[in-house]
């Protein structure tokens, strides 16, 4: 029977059954429309401080697999599903979703009309919400929601505390990676391209970075408001022109800020793996995975050295920029090992290698 409820900032209440951690939680409510890949989404550091509504109704069917995490644990604040499938089936599964949610303190609620929630978020914009016990008075929940704001130190929380290395045999280059909420799969891709990666905390200074004699700088994706992380802007401005720089997701947003462009918070961000983006150089369409709340203001971008390279086919938002003189490239989407946009990393490596037509 129903024992939990989801209270929205706007006052709507949805009842459901709890699973995962038996706690209450307030956070930003976002949705994800991906049909496959919940584990990667739930452990993606960019999703910190999100209560995630899954558009696909059945979640949990293949459990969780130790080697598939994007970070060390589940990062989301809460989970809302239509149906929690509690008997996973997959040859690699090591834990049930419910089990790890409990360990990581992530409350879940099931049995809700998640399609309606997606429609509400689209109509009213992103909002805060709370997963609460069914008998917690709604007024109390609304009060807590009101008091909540996305912590400014989420990046500090999720970023590595000390430097660590990902090494590969016969490496060609060393990449310095600023960890704003790094996904493991991105490091793996750089490794596959023959790079040693030095992962540095978000607040690493220039000296610390240069100590490792990097051939390129990689700024990861992550959660949070890009305006909250100003020291990385300085890093970019200092290293620009000295080595190729690649930014992904939050990394792109910060690069855009570093160049003087303005960002705005979208009504509803992107959270899915099926978003078509036009490569403005080749005019080809690439299907990408995105996870963002902020977008660059086109007018302000025009005044900078950055040129658009990619654009969302549906809403026209600029999703890729570059400064070819200084070898700085940035994309809003997350290049995945097997997707259309894999070349972004290859391009970065080619820039480092000094290839002309990179």
């Amino acid at each position, binding site marked *: 029977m129903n024992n939990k409820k989801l209270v929205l900032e706007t006052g709507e209440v949805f009842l459901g059954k709890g699973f995962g951690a038996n706690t209450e939680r307030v956070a930003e409510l976002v949705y994800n*429309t991906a049909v496959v890949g919940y584990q990667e989404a739930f452990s993606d550091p960019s999703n910190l401080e999100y209560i995630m509504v899954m558009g696909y*109704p059945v979640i949990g069917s293949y459990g969780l*697999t130790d080697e598939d995490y994007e970070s060390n644990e589940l990062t989301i604040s809460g989970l809302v599903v239509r149906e929690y499938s509690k008997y996973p089936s997959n040859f690699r599964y090591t834990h049930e979703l419910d089990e790890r949610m409990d360990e990581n303190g992530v409350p879940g609620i099931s049995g809700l009309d998640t399609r309606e929630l997606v429609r509400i978020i689209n109509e009213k914009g992103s909002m805060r919400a709370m997963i609460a016990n069914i008998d917690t008075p709604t007024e109390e929940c609304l009060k807590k929601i009101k008091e909540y704001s996305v912590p400014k130190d989420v990046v500090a929380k999720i970023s590595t505390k000390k430097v660590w290395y990902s090494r590969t045999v016969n490496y060609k280059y060393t990449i310095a990676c600023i960890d704003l909420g790094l996904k493991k799969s991105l490091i793996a891709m750089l490794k596959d391209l023959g790079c040693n990666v030095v992962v540095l905390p978000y607040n690493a200074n220039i000296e610390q970075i240069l100590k490792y004699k990097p051939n390129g700088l990689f700024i990861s994706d992550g959660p949070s408001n890009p305006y909250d992380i100003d020291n990385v802007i300085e890093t970019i401005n200092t290293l620009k022109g000295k080595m190729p720089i690649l930014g992904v997701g939050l990394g792109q947003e910060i690069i855009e800020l570093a160049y003087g462009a303005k960002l705005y918070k979208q009504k509803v961000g992107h959270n899915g793996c099926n978003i078509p983006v036009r490569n403005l150089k080749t005019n080809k369409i690439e299907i990408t995975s995105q996870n963002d709340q902020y977008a660059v203001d086109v007018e302000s971008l025009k005044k900078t050295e950055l040129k658009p390279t990619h654009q969302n086919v549906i809403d026209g938002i600029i999703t890729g920029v570059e400064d070819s003189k200084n070898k700085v490239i940035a994309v809003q989407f997350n290049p995945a090992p097997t997707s259309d946009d894999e070349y972004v990393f290859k391009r970065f490596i080619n820039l480092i290698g000094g290839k002309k037509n990179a």
Partner: protein
Amino acid sequence: MPRRTDIKKIMVIGSGPIVIGQAAEFDYAGTQCCLSLKEEGYEVILVNSNPATIMTDPNIADKIYMEPLDLEHVAKIIRYERPDGLIASMGGQTGLNLGMQLAKKGILDECGVELLGIKADTIDKAEDRELFKELCISIGEPVIESEIANNLDEIFKAAHDIGYPVILRPAFTLGGTGGGFAENDEELLPLAKNALKLSPVSQVLVEKSIKGYKEIEFEMMRDKNDTVIAICSMENIDPVGVHTGDSIVLAPVQTLTLKEFAMLKESAVKLMRALDLEGGCNIQFALDPYSFKYYLIEVNPRVSRSSALASKASGFPIARVSSKIAVGLTLDEIRIAATVASFEPTIDYVVCKFPRFPFDKFQDANRKLSTQMKATGEVMSIGRTIEESLLKSVRSLENKVDHLELASLKDKSLDELFDFIKKETDERIYGICEALRKGADIDDLYDITKIDRLFLRNLNNIVEMEKEIKDNPKNVEVLYEAKKMGFSDSYIARTWGISYVDVYKIRKENNIYPVYKKVDTCGAEYPSEVPYLYSTYEHENESIRSDRKKIVVLGSGPIRIGQGVEFDYTTVHAIWGIQEAGYEAIIINCNPETVSTDYTVSDKLYFEPLTFEDVMNVIDHEQPEGVVVALGGQTAINLADKLAAQNIKIFGTQADAIDVAEDRQLFEEAMNDINIPMPKGYGVYSVEEAVKAANEIGYPVLVRPSFVLGGRMMHIVYDEKVLKSKVKEAVAFDNEHPILVDKYVFGQECEVDAICDGEDVFIPGIMEHIERTGVHSGDSMSVYPPYSLSENAKKTIVDYTNRIGIKLKMIGLFNIQFIVDKSDNVSIIEVNPRSSRTVPFLAKSTDTPIANIATKVMLGAKLKDLGYVGLNKTRKRWYVKTPTFSFTKLTGLDVVLSPEMKSTGEAIGYDYSLNRALYKSLKASNTRVANYGTILATIADADKDQALPLIRRFYKLGFNIEATSGTAQFLRKNGIKTRSKKKISEGSEEILDSIRKGYVTYVINTSTEGITQNIDGKLIRRAAIDNNVTVFTCLDTVKVLLDVLEEITMGISVIDKE
């Protein structure tokens, strides 16, 4: 890149008559293709020989040729029309093969025609096993290891090279007969010997067995700009080993993590690029459930059954987009529903496809599922959980089953159930559920079925809910939970010992109604006005009722023998007619293959089961003016009573009038009233009554249940013993309605489809059958206009039709079947108070919009005002309908023509000469028309005198004659040189060997049904079908064939005699 302007005229090839594996999905694809090309301003020339299709309707293409789909005829059309481009990828394998032939024979080059969409080179690479293997190896994609072997040593070597388990497939046998699995040398030896023996060329393919692997499909799309998207992923519940057409399939995939999913998707993308494929493509994978190992099983570089399913499952119109790509557009330039076509669709529901098998009609066919598809159709359902989706699809099947439960399995023990499950029949899933009910362990079930544990868990959840329902009678909360899981009202009613109407009332009282959700390709990410809806028990209802006057049309459900695509044709016409009359047209249907479930056809599409509860839910929400049931075949008609009982207005013939037509006694009284003779007969409820009735009427009698379509369980019976068994069967099948026992009258059969508005009757035309009474009308060749009826008989038919229409208070379409005996007496066989399967054929032959007129009449228009009264003017050409059968796919089935319908589709042929029309129609139906070879005849004694002149005609044409001893003796006595073959019952395989050797052109075999179980005949017919030899079991068909052969064959004679 905009559309191409260098081409103006495009030819589209359809898929021809419906056979198992190639059904209504190509009407859906072809219709979309033609319309989307017209939308871009091209002139569209369509070729398709299947009259029962929407795509061949006048407003779909600019010019329509309903000619045989063979090289000869299509080449002629190309030479005459000179199109700039040809699209061959919409017509299934038939269209693709024909396109390739036209390319390879140089006809396309000769006429300057470009193959649009999929290129010839791509087709070759995808379709040719060896080229495909090479391609896959070159791009590093795994294909199943296989080797060809010609003897025992080679088979063993191959098996050892590949590694066990292996599967053997004898070369050049149809339906995969003689193959099998081997785990080791011991199992291989007998299998290998048998396989070599059965292959006519002693050749065997040894293949790695991947039985039990997960079967995963992707529907992909690519444009010339190299954008590739995955439209839909699908996972078969039945693992590899069962043809995907026979599998229960879910969309999207359910048990794959992102790693596996991305791996397969990447492989699919790679393959699309390597094939340089522009357009839609279906790619099938086998994935090891215990590793990342996978194989590419199959690539279909065209629209397919799976692409129709994927289109309906995702809301992404694959055929439409493929057609646009074929004329140069790119995905980002094509708008669909809420987004552009370059947006990969996402799904926020679970789709279940459930196959519909013909085994309810074909009880002697082998039910074991394998790699040869046996399903005639399918249903799809949409829900928010796997359980809901599964249960909705089960009750969509119209198999007299409303739940995953079969009465026939109830008494079986757990051991018996395991044995049953191991047989891998179409009823396996019901067996699994019964086993779970009896406490079977999921791991044990997994071991014998290899069905993923997730799905077994889903089934177990259903079984657990059953207990909950049972333990809590009339509990409203449990009712809501059960409804949420997809349980039917009727199942709950049965468990609670109340009627389904009671459950419906309890729901109504407690406000337990489903809500409707949109299928919008984007999971609600973008707002859309897509009028494509499904029900689920949740919170928000997205179906907004408009304030327009609206009418609900019931579709015809899954395609099965006797109720095929022709009823979708009439359903679509009903929608159009309703719209023309100014109403909003709402369709309810559950068949993903059809045009009627294309959401652009109607104002609103509810993708729902056609049961009382699901239909009432829609009606309660939409509050329509009424419902049209008469155009959706028996499915819709069967709901008329139940809906009328809820005071729902039925447009057209009323439920009580339907009863008069279908109830034996009422019908007889009505016919008596208007002095129309009919064969003497009775409606009976028991074997005793039947025997009494038959004795009074006198044998032979015709036995059949009422309220069925397609002559199901209809038999001509010559004696009491057989009568008893047939009636027993029929009573067991349906004890609610009477069994009809009628005098069997021998004569010429003919039928009319007519429209009545209560005052006047309009008869578009009379059709005359080639085969005698006793062959089901759906299996008969049919000719319009009549070729042998006297003026007097025609007059009587028109007169009777008029009187019956008015007397039975028909409003709209009805169909009457007549017999004209030797003395020109006309009598009635039956009246069907609804649209019949001949409506599209007759509409096309008479160039009359029959279904449209009927719809308008049902909505209240008068025939007089529409200008259609009396018998239509007869046309100058002959139009012939020939049935097609799918016998090669259904092993074990006896192929004799009888009152029980067996055909799956039909083709049309027309010409100013009757024989030429017959020739074209036979060709179009894929009947072999060869004027040389050998006839193998086995004729029943009663037919020998009739057969003699026919065999003599073959003899004169130069055919060799072989016959069984009795027939041979008779023929020789009459001066025909005949080779005598020993009967099978005499322990000889001589006849079967003749058939297997491949020199026999036709087998002519007549037997009188019911007199004796003619085992020999059955074996001969089956052997012929299994070796692709044409069988005739009715001499009337043979006569027509001879007329045609004599027309196309130059005779020979000596010079001095005239």
